[in-house]
């Protein structure tokens, strides 16, 4: 057997898996999306149908807000955790990364315990103002849940990036007269830009497609995964749910590509 055919033989299992579990279902999904009464135009429904469009905008806004807030919180926390040594640090890091193990259902459950009808926040506001503050079943509850499981993912990436930062750069900036804010703005944040793009992309994509938390909180929250679910199971609208699925994938991919190319110059410059 020649060296080349040996390599091909080794790649065979991968090829079979790729075709069976990735390519075929994808193709089937794309085909199904075009099999509705509107045909190929079904794909445009995600943009043309007002209800779908509003859901799309909602989902993108929610994912974007989750990404931005996650990055801010995780950067501050990650920088602190990487730069300081104190008793209990290892335990704190372990706790912060704990939510990685939870499925969306558990996260949703925890949000209900916190901000649901019998939740802690409701109890607290009831005693203080005589009114129950309940937001677990809305998009705000979902936002909180997404934050909860995005932060651990991002914080680990940021901590690794902070560790690789050249402390000399910060000292050089200070020697040239830069105060703490200027050092962050001119040196630290630009150097962390690649980590922001990488971890932000994961946070964004996860928030776009997450389902378990939304499903646990309420079935009528306006996000795309929930819409796909209702179209599929309740309305049995296979073609529309397939078209929406493809749309969700393409739009997420497109926004990530856009973010990457925007930050491309910054990434290249810091590389």
């Amino acid at each position, binding site marked *: 057997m020649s060296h080349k055919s040996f390599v091909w033989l080794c790649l065979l299992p991968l090829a079979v898996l790729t075709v069976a579990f990735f390519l075929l279902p994808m193709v089937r999904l794309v085909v199904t999306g075009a099999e509705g009464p509107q045909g190929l135009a079904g794909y445009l429904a995600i943009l043309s149908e007002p209800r779908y469009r509003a859901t799309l905008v909602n989902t993108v806004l929610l994912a974007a807000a989750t990404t931005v807030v996650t990055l801010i919180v995780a950067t501050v926390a990650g920088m602190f955790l990487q730069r300081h040594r104190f008793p209990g640090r290892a335990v704190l890091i372990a706790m912060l990364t704990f939510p990685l193990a939870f499925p969306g259902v558990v996260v949703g459950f925890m949000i209900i315990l916190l901000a649901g009808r019998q939740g802690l926040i409701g109890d607290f506001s009831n005693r203080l103002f005589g009114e129950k503050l309940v937001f677990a079943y809305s998009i705000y509850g979902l936002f909180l849940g997404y934050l909860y499981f995005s932060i651990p993912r991002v914080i680990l990436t940021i901590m690794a990036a902070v560790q690789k930062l050249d402390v000399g750069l910060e000292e*050089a900036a200070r*020697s*040239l*007269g830069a105060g703490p804010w200027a050092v962050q703005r*001119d040196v630290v944040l630009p150097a962390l830009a690649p980590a922001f793009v990488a971890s932000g992309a994961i946070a964004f994509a996860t928030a776009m497609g997450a389902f378990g938390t939304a499903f646990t909180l309420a079935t009528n929250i306006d996000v795309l995964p929930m819409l796909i679910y209702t179209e599929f199971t309740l309305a049995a609208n296979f073609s529309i749910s397939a078209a929406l699925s493809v749309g969700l994938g393409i739009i997420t991919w497109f926004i990530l590509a856009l973010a990457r190319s925007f930050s491309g110059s910054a990434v290249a410059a*810091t590389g």
Partner: protein
Amino acid sequence: MSAQAGHGASVRIEACGKTFADGTRALEPATLEIARGETLVLLGPSGCGKTTMLRIIAGLELPDAGGRVLFDDKDMTAVPIERRNVGMVFQSYALFPNMTVSDNIGYGLKIRGIPNKERAARVAELVALTNISGLENRRIDQLSGGQRQRVALARAVAIRPGILLLDEPLTALDAALRDRLRGELNRLLRALGITTIYVTHDQSEAMELGDRVVVMQKGAIAQIGTPREIYFTPRRRFVAEFIGAANIVEAAIEGGYLVLPGGRQPIHCDVDMPAAVAMIRPETIRVTSAGSASLSGTVDSVSFIGDRQRLVVSGASNRLLTVDAPNTVRVRLGERIGLSISPDAVRLLPPEN
């Protein structure tokens, strides 16, 4: 460049020690004075405390309680580095990768709120001074090591600092480039006339650049002096061996002579000592014929270096003796040769304890 002549502060550090949180003593309390416009070199092996001293002067480390740092007799101990007006060049250069060459050089001026036009003029001046014309819009990763070194220096000097601090600025470069840049750096520092503190582990750099050299060992100052003083009159065996090549001779002194296995060597010392330690530089030993010499030995090896040849001679002292002979002297391996050394060239060292 004449605009900067005479710009510079004097520095005094008083009883500055440094103990790290884990209890290691990086620097024994040291006191040191650096005159306005002087170039002082902190020289020593790694871990000797030279970088710690530089960082205390810079304001990147706080000295232990009781230590004080003064610029022009003003107490700066509690002033952070960003308000000390020091220019610093780091071993890694620490150039900002997200900025161009000219943005790097102009960064300190931008922070100080200097208007664009004035800043551009100053950057252009430094680009010309450090010989990096044509690289202004390059990114840092497009520069060679030597170019980075120049940019780092230009950036540090751009802010017209009172004190210039250089932490092993040539160590990251290869040997040939290092030699060339050393000469260039020397001319530049002389032209700028700023008070300069230069950290290195390379004794030839220290010799060439320093008005005075501070030799450091294990967190303490071993000797301070001009390069000549350090070389010719080391006060410790460590200094003698660290600066240049040195033969250390352990022998008894009797009647003004070192008593050696290969004969007797006159020394300026009237006191008899049973166990003295002396230093003899290899280039001060002259090769003569064995017959008439009061000190002789056997040639163990000959290395022809070009401008001179290095002989290793056994049997003369209690250990092998290194001799730098002119390249014209013909010696054979195993030949018995005489060694003539002026008593002026034999430096008595205090015994190590």
